[in-house]
C-alpha cells in the first residue's frame, strides 16, 4: 500500500512553458504533500536505508558498535543468503502459501460477496458478523485455532471423531503433512471477510440497470455473471488480490505463533526474524530482509506495469 501512495504523490511536471498560475499551483501541491513525504521518509525511508546498510556489514545484535563493511558477502558470499538452501525453502513456502491462500480467499470472498449482495433484511447484520474474524488480532486467532486444532484437547478433533469421520485425533499442527494446510486454512478463515467486503463494494458499484437490461433480454444468470458482473468487478478484484498477495508475502505472525519451529512452514519473514533475533546476525538478517523487500518491490512493479498497460488498452 505504501508503495502506491509514494508513487501517486508528486505532481507531474508539464513539459511546456508554464504560466505563473500553474507554477504557484504546483508549489502549493508540493507544499501540501510535503508533510506526508517527510513522515514517510522518517518512518519508512530511514529504517529501510539502515537495513540496507546493515546488510553490507557483519554486525551482531549483541554489539552494534563493532561492525565492519563486508560488501555483498552477506548476499552472495560463501555463506550468503542467496546460497542458503533454507532461505530458498522459505521462499518456496511463502510463494506456495501466497498463491494458495490468495486464490482460496478470492474465490470464497467472491462467493460470500455475491451472497451478501442479494437484497435482504439480514444483510446489514451479516455484513457486520462476517467482519468478526478480520477484526480479531492475528495472534489471538492463531492461538485460538491452535487450541481448537490441538490433537489432545482440541474441540475440532472431538467433533470430527463424534461425527465418525476420523478414528484417531489428527495432529493438525505438529503433523508435517498437515501443518502447512492448517496454516492456510486459518489464514483463509481470517482474511476471506476482508476480500468479501472489498468485492461487495465492487459489486455494489455495478449499475443495477445493466442487470435489468439483461433480465429483459432474457440473458441467463450464468452468462450475466461471466459477461457483465465479472468484467466489471475485475479491476477491484485485482487490486484486492494484490493487497492480499503483498500481505501474504510478508506472512509472519500466524506461522510464528502456530508452528514457529517447523522448517516445513517457515516463511521468509520467519526466516529473517530467526537470523536477526535468534542467531543475532544483524548483517545477515538485514541482507535477507532486503532480499524479501526486493521480491515485494518486484511484484509491485510488475503489477503496476500490468495495470498501466490495461488502462491504456481501454
Amino acid at each position: 500500500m505504501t508503495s502506491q501512495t509514494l508513487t501517486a504523490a508528486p505532481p507531474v511536471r508539464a513539459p511546456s512553458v508554464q504560466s505563473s498560475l500553474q507554477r504557484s499551483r504546483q508549489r502549493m501541491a508540493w507544499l501540501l504533500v510535503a508533510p506526508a513525504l517527510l513522515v514517510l521518509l522518517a518512518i519508512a525511508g530511514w529504517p529501510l536505508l539502515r537495513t540496507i546498510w546493515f546488510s553490507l556489514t557483519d554486525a551482531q545484535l549483541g554489539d552494534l558498535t563493532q561492525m565492519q563493511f563486508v560488501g555483498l558477502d552477506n548476499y552472495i558470499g560463501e555463506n550468503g543468503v542467496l546460497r542458503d538452501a533454507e532461505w530458498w525453502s522459505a521462499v518456496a513456502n511463502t510463494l506456495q502459501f501466497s498463491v494458495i491462500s490468495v486464490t482460496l480467499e478470492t474465490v470464497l470472498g467472491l462467493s460470500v460477496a455475491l451472497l451478501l449482495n442479494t437484497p435482504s433484511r439480514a444483510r446489514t447484520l451479516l455484513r457486520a458478523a462476517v467482519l468478526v474474524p478480520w477484526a480479531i488480532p492475528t495472534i489471538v486467532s492463531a492461538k485460538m485455532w491452535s487450541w481448537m486444532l490441538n490433537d489432545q484437547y482440541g474441540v475440532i478433533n472431538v467433533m470430527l471423531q463424534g461425527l465418525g469421520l476420523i478414528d484417531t485425533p489428527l495432529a493438525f499442527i505438529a503433523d508435517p503433512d498437515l501443518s502447512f494446510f492448517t496454516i492456510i486454512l486459518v489464514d483463509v478463515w481470517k482474511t476471506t471477510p476482508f476480500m468479501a467486503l472489498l468485492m461487495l463494494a465492487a459489486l455494489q458499484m455495478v449499475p443495477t440497470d445493466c442487470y435489468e437490461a439483461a433480465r429483459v433480454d432474457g440473458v441467463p444468470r450464468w452468462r450475466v455473471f461471466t459477461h457483465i458482473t465479472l468484467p466489471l468487478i475485475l479491476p477491484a478484484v485485482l487490486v484486492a488480490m494484490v493487497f492480499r498477495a503483498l500481505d501474504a508475502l510478508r506472512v509472519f505472525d500466524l506461522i510464528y505463533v502456530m508452528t514457529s519451529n517447523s522448517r516445513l512452514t517457515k516463511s521468509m519473514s520467519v526466516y529473517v526474524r530467526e537470523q536477526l533475533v535468534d542467531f543475532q546476525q544483524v548483517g545477515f538478517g538485514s541482507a535477507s530482509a532486503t532480499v524479501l523487500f526486493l521480491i515485494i518491490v518486484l511484484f509491485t512493479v510488475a503489477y503496476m506495469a500490468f495495470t498501466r498497460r490495461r488502462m491504456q488498452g481501454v
Partner: protein
Amino acid sequence: MCQIRLDNVQKRFGDTPILADIQLTVEAGEFCVFIGPSGCGKSTLLRLIAGLEDVSAGNIHIDGVRVNDLPPARRDVAMVFQSYALYPHMTVYDNMAFGLRHLKLGEVEIERRVRVAAESLHLTPLLTRKPGALSGGQRQRVAIGRAIVRQPKVFLFDEPLSNLDASLRVKTRVEIARLHRELGRASMIYVTHDQTEAMTLADKIVLLKPLAGQEGVPSIAQVGHPLELYHHPRSRFVASFIGSPGMNFFDAEVLAASGDGVQCRAGGQVLDAAVNGRTCAPGSTLTLGVRPEHVLCGEGPHQGRVTHLEHLGEHSYAYLDCALSKAPLVVKVMQSALAIGDTLRFALPAGQLHAFVADGEALPRLAALPPAAMRAVSAAA
C-alpha cells in the same frame, strides 16, 4: 400482432399506493405515450409491463396471455432505459449483440441484425467504440438499437430523450416516429414528461396523475388521441397539463345554464360558454378555462393591461392584468409592436371556453373536434 391489456392493475410500494385501477388497452402496432408529472408512476407502470416489478393486484395480458407470473424474458418485450443501461465494458457492436447470443441464432444472423440496426440508426462508424467514448445522443441510439435487434413484439421506452439537448431531441423524435412506421407491427409504449413529444408521437396518450395518498381515485386521468386530450380535457388536471403555455383559469358565477350553454359572470362581465350545463344550477360557481392561443386579440368586450411580454419570434405571449381573473391572463398575440403598459382589447369566443365544476370535472363541450382532428381520432380508433 400484439395487444397489451391492463386490467384493474394496482401497484403499491409497502403501504403507499403508487398506481391504482389502471384500465388500459394498447392495440397492436399502436404508439402509446404515458405522460404525467414527475413521480406519478410512469416508469413504474412501464416496469410492470416489462416484468421488472410485480403487480400488487390486477392482470396484465400480452397477446391474450396473462403474463403476471412470466419473467421479463418470456414477455417478448424490449426496453430502452432512461439511463440507457449500456454495458460499459462492451463495444457498441457487443452491446447490441449480447442480448441475442444466448438465443442460438448463429453469429451470421446476429451480425446481420446488428448491421441493419446500426445502419438505420447511423451507428455503423461507431460499432467498435465503447459507450464511454460516445455522446449522449449516440448512446441513446445504441440503446434503441439494442432493442431493435431483439425484434420484440413490444417496445418500451422510458424517457429516452430526456438527456438530450433540444435540437438532438427533435431529431431523435423524428427518427423514433420513422422507426415506428418502419417496424410497423410492433407496439410501442413510450414514457415522457415532455408534452411536445407526447403530442407529436402518440396515437394514444395516457395521462397519469399522482395519487398523493388518496384512496379510490384511479391513476389514469384520461386516455385518448392527443387532440382529444387537447380539445376535450375531461378534468381541470388534464386541461392544465396538456398545452403550453398552460390554460388560463378563472372563477365565474353561473347566471343561467342549460344543455345548450352556460352564461356566467366573471369580474363583473358576462360570458357565454358553449358547454353542456344541464347539471349546474344558477348561482353556483364554475372555473372557466381558455387556452392562450384561443383568445381573440385586437378587439372585443374585454380589455387588459400588458404587464409582461414573451417574444418567441413568430408570435408572442402577453400577460394581461384584467378584471376577469386575479392571476395574469396569458394570451397569444401575432403582432410584436405591443409594449408593456399598453392596453389590449380581446374577446373570449364561447366555443373556446372550457368549464369545470368544483371537483375539477369538466362540463362536456358542445363544439366538436375540428375536422382534421376528427379524422385523426377516428383513424386511431
